[in-house]
């Protein structure tokens, strides 16, 4: 038994990365990032606003949170809808009471089906980030090229029509991309994406159609990962976020601006028995002088002129 000789060849074993998307960079050796008003930690709340058709599709893959039982899966269809009808408004009230602007990663189907939600988001000063057509709009290598391009273009156009402004940001469902997704995003006028989790500050990401900014949206400290996947409590989740904020405030004093992304899901964090812990966390974070609650768009915009051109 032996392996194909090519398995022991390493054509991309070289200085730097094994691709040309971005240069290697050490967070602690970069020119410090300065946030507006001398703030130290940008707390970026991103809410995923999703519509799951009761007829799930598995091409290219079934989205996390999608239907699980045999048809008709009333249980999961309605639980997700609970988040959109009820949980979202608990979150929005919590943000409104504290003057916190957030980014809402919105399926285009939400804009089509529930325009009053979009009106509320716009009126309350939140940012709409494009997040696919609906939860069957997943992207991965091997999918049909035309469908790939259409998912991205339709998502942006529908949200643009609903909000009156073309979204600047993009979040892929499950952060899943095909090899050329960044090219399609850039060609469609997207300025930043939230998919790559390899850093803790925005950085430049190259495509054949010009550069994007990647704003890393930590997938590990999302409510989906901590509460739904790892089955920890809301109290523990809030504690972890507070610990993270305090660590980053300490680092910021020495190394410049830091960023803490908080990725929330209405049907997870917007439940009656969880929302109190989230509200209390927001109060505790707001009490820290160095915290700047900002949308991912504000963060990208603030960081862009400060990023290395390399």
């Amino acid at each position: 038994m032996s392996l194909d000789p090519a398995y022991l060849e390493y054509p991309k074993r070289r200085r730097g990365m094994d691709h040309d998307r971005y240069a290697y960079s050490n967070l602690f050796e970069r020119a410090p990032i300065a946030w507006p008003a001398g703030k130290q930690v940008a707390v970026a709340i991103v809410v995923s606003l999703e519509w799951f058709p009761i007829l799930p599709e598995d091409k290219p893959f079934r989205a996390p949170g999608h239907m699980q039982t045999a048809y008709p899966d009333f249980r999961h269809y309605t639980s997700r809808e609970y988040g959109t009808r009820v949980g979202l408004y608990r979150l929005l009230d919590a943000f409104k009471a504290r003057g916190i602007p957030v980014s809402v990663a919105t399926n285009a189907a939400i804009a089509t089906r529930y325009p009053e939600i979009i009106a509320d988001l716009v009126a309350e000063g939140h940012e709409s980030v494009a997040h696919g057509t609906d939860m069957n709009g997943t992207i991965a290598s091997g999918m049909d090229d035309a469908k790939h391009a259409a998912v991205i273009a339709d998502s942006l156009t529908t949200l643009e029509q609903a909000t009156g402004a073309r979204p600047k940001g993009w979040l892929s469902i499950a952060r899943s991309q095909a090899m050329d997704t960044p090219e399609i995003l850039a060609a469609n006028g997207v300025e930043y994406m939230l998919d790559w989790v390899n850093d803790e500050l925005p950085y430049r990401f190259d495509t054949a159609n010009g550069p994007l900014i990647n704003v890393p949206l930590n997938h590990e400290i999302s409510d989906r990962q901590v509460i739904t996947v790892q089955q920890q409590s809301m109290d523990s989740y809030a504690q972890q976020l507070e610990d993270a904020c305090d660590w980053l405030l300490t680092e910021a004093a020495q190394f410049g601006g830091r960023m803490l992304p908080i990725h929330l899901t209405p049907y997870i964090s917007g439940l009656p028995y969880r929302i109190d812990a989230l509200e209390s966390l927001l109060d505790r974070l707001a009490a820290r002088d160095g915290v700047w609650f900002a949308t991912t768009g504000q963060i990208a915009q603030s960081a862009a002129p400060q990023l290395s051109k390399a």
Partner: protein
Amino acid sequence: MQEGAGDPGLYGFRRWRDRAPIRWPGDKQVAVWISPNLEFYELDPPVNPNRKAWAKPHPDVVGYSHRDHANRVGHWRMAEVMTKHGFPGSVSLSVALCDHIPEVVEDANARGWEFFSHGIYNTRYTYGMDEAQERAIIEDSIRTVRDLTGQTIKGWLAPALTHTPRTLDLIAEYGLTYTCDLYHDDQPGEVAVKSGRLISIPYSLEVNDHYGFFVYNMSPREYADTLIRQFERLAAEGEQGGTVMCIPLHSYLIGQPHRIGAFEEVLRHIAADGRAWITRSGDIAEHYLATKQVVQGEPAL
């Protein structure tokens, strides 16, 4: 190993009770070593017929970029905390990191850390290699680490824990003295090999941060508490004869901002305790090899 046998014949049986004691330097009771895995994963690696590199079609954006966090962010944060509390690293190294991002390897070297091989990339598996291929990755490992750091590797942790029946014999033949791939004990012990002398240094799956966070789904504070319990027990039992506690880490996990603070408290606790020999895997191996003769009946071959 005994290929094809139900008992692979890796070592002889020795019960935990009534062993001849191991004595650590300074009469410390537990040798504590931290093993940061400094790795490089490929975005689009070739396929090994025995194991897929990524769960998703390439690019697996989350899988790849999560691990890339280690080199951009996590390593630097983790390494500072370790140095602050006096803990050196014993690095499980994807040796291609020496080519891609020598900054990370040079930083570890400058901090006085030791290196052992964890293969070329953590996306290239040993399963299915013939002897010449396996020799090639061992020789590549020795050469690559020596060229960048001046160190000669003494240990091996198979890439992504993938082995062949001949791996242990081959690393011993090349003069390596220890393996981290065997999980049968809380003390070092002899491993049966065709030539040379190879010992097992206890690594750990159970208190590995990957297991803590992704198998047992612990919160950062629960994981920190787990490490302290592990330490307390092994330090207490070490009164009868030195034990070993390894803390295997991946900085893209432990170096996240919500985890590093709780982990720092663990290091503070162990450093202040006084019973720990805070050391490196190669120093444990060297001490053991110098002070322990091959015990009669071990390995039982």
